[in-house]
Structures are given as structure tokens and as C-alpha cells.
């Protein structure tokens, strides 16, 4: 019971933050009642999904300082676990998602056990290498549809099917991912104040000191990695049901991994709201730039040019992201 209370305990945060967060949360709750276009709807769903990915990355990358650039492989594992079992055995989503999470955790312990000995660049590139190896395997593995991927046929189940997460209306998908989103925030809120969260921050500051204080560094990292992977893989399963058509290229590519890391980076790694801010800025920007400039004006690639320029600007000017700017302003006010 005591533990459960910690999930809902936001008292250490400034009141202003909580007010804004509550307002945004309410706005998200009532969002489908307003007549927005289906494009706006899918953008907001994307936003929720990427905030969740970002929250996952934030546990290991933000609080722990281990820059993982291969998280998309777990997205792929989750998505494929759901898609394969749904197509072959009609397994409900609520069964295949935990199974996918378990597979992802098993795989991440194997990877994590070996790569967590590395630091800095070496660690980041090693995670990229592992995700590319897995992607190459998926691209030739016929059981999972090889390079052409898998498709859940549009007539497979009758529409409101909560077991298989099969709807024709985006609204229902929206509320399901929104529920995930709130659970994710509550979990990270608990995580940052948990024993593991504090251990992780001390590892980030100085690994030697952390070890000398009796923290089992390797084990703490692997546990946190499992948390991050759970987030990514669970939302990956949702992605399979929502998009219904998955390929190795758009679930496991390096671009997705970097995008995930970027959510937290841009918003502010190691803060509770960071990934949400990052996703809130990047996802609408990306999809609307693509819609306006890419599709209408016929300028293919200009959206990502601007996107790349923004990443360059942020990393050169304010490496701690938007949250870094906010904190700097606050500190100045206090002084």
C-alpha cells in the first residue's frame, strides 16, 4: 500500500508544473470529442506512443546515462510477437503483449549482460550493432515474413474487438494508448524516487563511487534496461495492432532508435516531463512538415532536413534540452 502511494505522489514537483500537466492531461482526455481531422488524431496517437518510448529510453539513458541507440530492436520484438501470434494462432493482444515483453526482456538481458561493460561511444555503437544484426535476421526469416513483413488483414476480426485490439475507429486506439500513457507517467514517477532510481543516478554521476558504496552496478543497469525494454516492447505490440502492417525497416531501423532517444534528449533527459515535451514538439512538427512541405509542395526530404537542423541546433546550443532551458530560467529567478 505504501508503495502504491508513491505512484501518485507528485508533491516534490513545483505547483506550476503540476497545473500544466493536469491541464494537458485533461485536454488529452477530451480530445476525441472535438472534431479534429483523422490526421490530427493519428498525430496525437503517434505523440502518445513516442512519449512512451521516450519514457522508456529516459529510464536507462536519462537517469542512468547509458546512451542506448538500439531500442528499436525491442519495439520490433514486441510488434512481431503480437503480429505473428495474432496471424498464426489468433492470440489475443493481452496475451501476446506480455509474452512479447518477456521475450524482449530475455533478449535484453543477453545483450545487456555483455554491453553494459562498455562505456560512452563504445556502448552506444554496440547497441546499434546488435539492433542491426537483429534487423538483418528478421529481413530473411521467413517465419516472420522476411523483408516484406506481416500484415493483419483488415477483415480478420469484426470491428470492436477488445481482445485482439481490432477497431475501425481510431478513437478506441486512442483511449487505450492514453491509458498506457498515464500508467507510464505514474510508473516513471515512482521509478525516479525508487531505490533503483537513486542507484542509477549515482551510477551516472560516478560509476566507481557507486560501486564503492556497495551498488551492484551491472545488476542495476540490467534491471533498468529491462524496465526501458518493457515500455518499448509493450508499445511495440500496440503499434502492430494499430498500424496492422509491420516491416523490419519501419519497426527496427536505426532511425527509429535515434528518434526514441531524441524524444528524451530534446525535452530533457533525466527529467519526468522531458520525453513528453520532446515528443510533443517533435512528432507534430515531423508529421505536419511532411504533410505540408513533403506531400503538397513535392519537396521530398525537406521535412527531415529541417528536423536534422533542429537536432543540430539543440545539441550544440542547449544539450540538456528544453527542460534545461526551463531549469536555467527558474534558477535565475530564484537567485
Amino acid at each position, binding site marked *: 500500500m505504501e508503495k502504491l502511494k508513491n505512484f501518485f505522489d507528485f508533491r516534490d514537483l513545483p505547483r506550476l508544473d503540476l497545473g500544466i500537466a493536469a491541464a494537458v492531461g485533461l485536454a488529452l482526455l477530451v480530445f476525441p470529442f472535438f472534431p479534429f481531422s483523422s490526421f490530427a488524431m493519428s498525430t496525437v496517437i503517434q505523440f502518445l506512443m513516442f512519449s512512451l518510448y521516450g519514457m522508456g529510453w529516459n529510464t536507462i539513458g536519462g537517469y542512468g546515462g547509458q546512451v542506448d541507440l538500439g531500442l528499436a530492436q525491442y519495439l520490433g520484438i514486441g510488434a512481431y510477437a503480437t503480429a505473428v501470434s495474432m496471424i498464426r494462432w489468433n492470440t489475443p493482444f493481452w496475451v501476446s503483449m506480455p509474452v512479447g515483453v518477456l521475450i524482449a526482456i530475455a533478449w535484453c538481458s543477453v545483450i545487456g549482460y555483455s554491453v553494459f561493460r562498455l562505456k560512452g561511444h*563504445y556502448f552506444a*555503437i554496440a547497441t546499434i550493432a546488435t539492433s542491426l544484426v537483429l534487423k538483418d535476421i528478421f529481413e530473411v526469416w521467413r517465419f516472420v515474413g522476411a523483408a516484406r513483413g506481416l500484415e493483419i488483414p483488415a477483415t480478420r476480426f469484426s470491428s470492436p474487438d477488445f481482445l485482439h485490439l481490432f477497431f475501425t475507429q481510431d478513437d478506441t486506439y486512442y483511449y487505450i494508448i492514453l491509458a498506457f500513457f498515464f500508467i507510464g507517467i505514474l510508473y516513471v514517477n515512482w521509478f525516479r524516487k525508487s531505490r533503483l532510481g537513486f542507484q542509477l543516478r549515482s551510477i551516472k554521476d560516478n560509476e566507481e563511487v557507486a560501486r564503492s558504496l556497495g551498488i551492484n552496478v551491472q545488476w542495476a543497469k540490467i534491471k533498468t534496461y529491462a524496465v526501458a525494454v518493457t515500455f518499448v516492447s509493450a508499445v511495440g505490440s500496440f503499434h502492430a495492432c494499430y498500424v496492422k502492417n509491420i516491416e523490419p525497416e519501419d519497426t527496427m531501423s536505426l532511425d527509429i532508435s535515434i528518434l526514441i532517444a531524441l524524444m528524451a534528449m530534446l525535452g530533457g533527459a533525466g527529467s519526468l516531463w522531458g520525453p513528453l515535451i520532446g515528443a510533443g514538439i517533435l512528432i507534430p512538427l515531423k508529421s505536419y512538415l511532411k504533410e505540408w512541405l513533403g506531400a503538397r509542395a513535392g519537396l521530398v526530404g525537406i521535412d527531415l532536413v529541417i528536423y*536534422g537542423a533542429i537536432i543540430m541546433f539543440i545539441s*550544440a546550443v542547449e*544539450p540538456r534540452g528544453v527542460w534545461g532551458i526551463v531549469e536555467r530560467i527558474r534558477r535565475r529567478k530564484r537567485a
Partner: protein
Amino acid sequence: MEILVGSLVAGLLIGMLFALIALGLTIIFGMMDIVNFAHGEFLMLGMYTALLTSQASGLDPLLMIPVAGAVGYALGVACYYGFVKFLLRGPMVAQLLGTFGLMLFLRNLALLLFGSEDRTIHSGVLVNRAFDLGMGVVVPATKLAGAVMAVISFAAVWLLMHRTRTGKAMVATALNRQGARYMGISTERMNGLAWGIGAATVTIAGALLVNFWSVTPYVGLLFTMIAFAIVALGGFGSVPGAFFAGLIVGLITEIPGFWDFFTYLTGSSWMAGISMTPFKYTWVYLAYFLIMLIRPRGLFGWKN
């Protein structure tokens, strides 16, 4: 037997070009501990430079190597003073993502300017020429030229680093930045120079590569990963290491050929049943992973 010798020769030849591609990455990493994700994009721009200038001027693509080198040098220096200089002040995370942003920027700029279709060079002194060495070993002139140029470039960079004052200043900066500054070396200038040389070598490699490899805006990532693997194997920051590691990685990419040879040699049916071609580059990634676990310093690494 022909398959074996053929694969060996092909692997070593392409390996030298891979080494040239990785040379710039290892120089830059050695100087300022920054991993450049946009490295493959520099290569792509070198390929486009050689292809477009030779098509526009009607000259042979080989003559465009100096042009590509000059473009690369300018690009590298511009990247350093305009962008990387600011990145170096930030934490490692920002550096990783910053160069990734550069990669996205350059790749999609190329997509915007040149379109997404595959482009190849159809005419040129080297294109479609080959030397038959006997034993069924055919050496394409394009790859031979790449290998020769790679050896020349490595020799040039080695001489620059060890025989000239500027080069020695660069090595000093790489070894101890603060100490170098006390000795009156402008470390800022050395960094800019390292970016210039690093980018120039990789664009030259691109100008050679485009003779036998079609170019699209997306060609960069594969070569970035190959270059990472080479640099990791050779030791981050080591120039001779990059050369030998390039040869090894070249041989690794020829694993499908060796696989065919052993299939033929042993006559086993299960080996024949497995096609290795889709995994051509998977072995490179795997090699990177294993090297990092077993010997993170690489074969010739001198930095910890």
C-alpha cells in the same frame, strides 16, 4: 579453388577502400573523441560530387578525385567551425545526437537536391575494364584503382602525421590537448584541420567507390557502420590499425564467397541450403560487437 582465391583477392581489394573510408573517422576520433555519425554521408557527397561533375564536364570520373577531395575538405572544415566546435563543449550524449542530426540533415539535403533514384557511372577509363590474373581471378580496374589510391592516401597521412611540423602538432593535440596548448599549438586549428583531412579522405574514397557502386542518398549508413567496425577493430584513433582492420573487414564481407568454397569443398548439403548473401554485412556488425566485448582497445589501440 578459384572461388577461394577470388574471394580472398576481392576481399583484400575492397578492404583497402574500406580502410580509406574509415581513415577519416579514426583521425577525427583520435583528435577529439567524437564519433561522427555523418561519416557515411560525407562519402555519399563525395560520390555525388564525382558523378555529377564528371557528367557535367564530360571528363573521366577519375579526374574528379581532386575536386571531390577539395569539396570534402571544405565541407569538413565548415562542419567543424560551424557546428562541431559547439558540440565539443557539451556532454557525450549531445555529441552523439548532434552528429546524428548532421547525418539526417546531409542525407535529406541530398535527397532534396539529387532525388532518390540510383545513379551509376556508365563511362570512364576504368569502368568495365578488368585484369585477368589467371587461376580464374579477375581484378576489376575500378577496385584496383581504389586499392592503389587507398595505399597512397594512407602513406600520405602517415607522412603528414609523423614527418611534418603540423602533423606532429596534430598528434600532440590528440595525445594531450592541454599540454599541446601550453606548447603554443592552436588546438582549435588542429581540430579543424583534422575534420578537413578526415572529410577529404572519405570524399576521395567516395569518388573511387562511385566507379563501381551506385549512389543514392541512403548509401551512407552501411558505410558508416563498416567504418565503425574498422575503427573499432583497428583501435579508435590508430591510423595503421585502420589499414589492417580494413583488410580484415574486407575479408569479412567476402564470407559468402568462403562459405560457397567450403560448401563445395566438403560437399555438405546443409551448407548449400543456407544462403549467406543476405548476411553479407551482418558479419561486420557482429564482428564489431565481438571486438568491443573481447578487446575494446582494438588491435592497435593506443587510447583507453
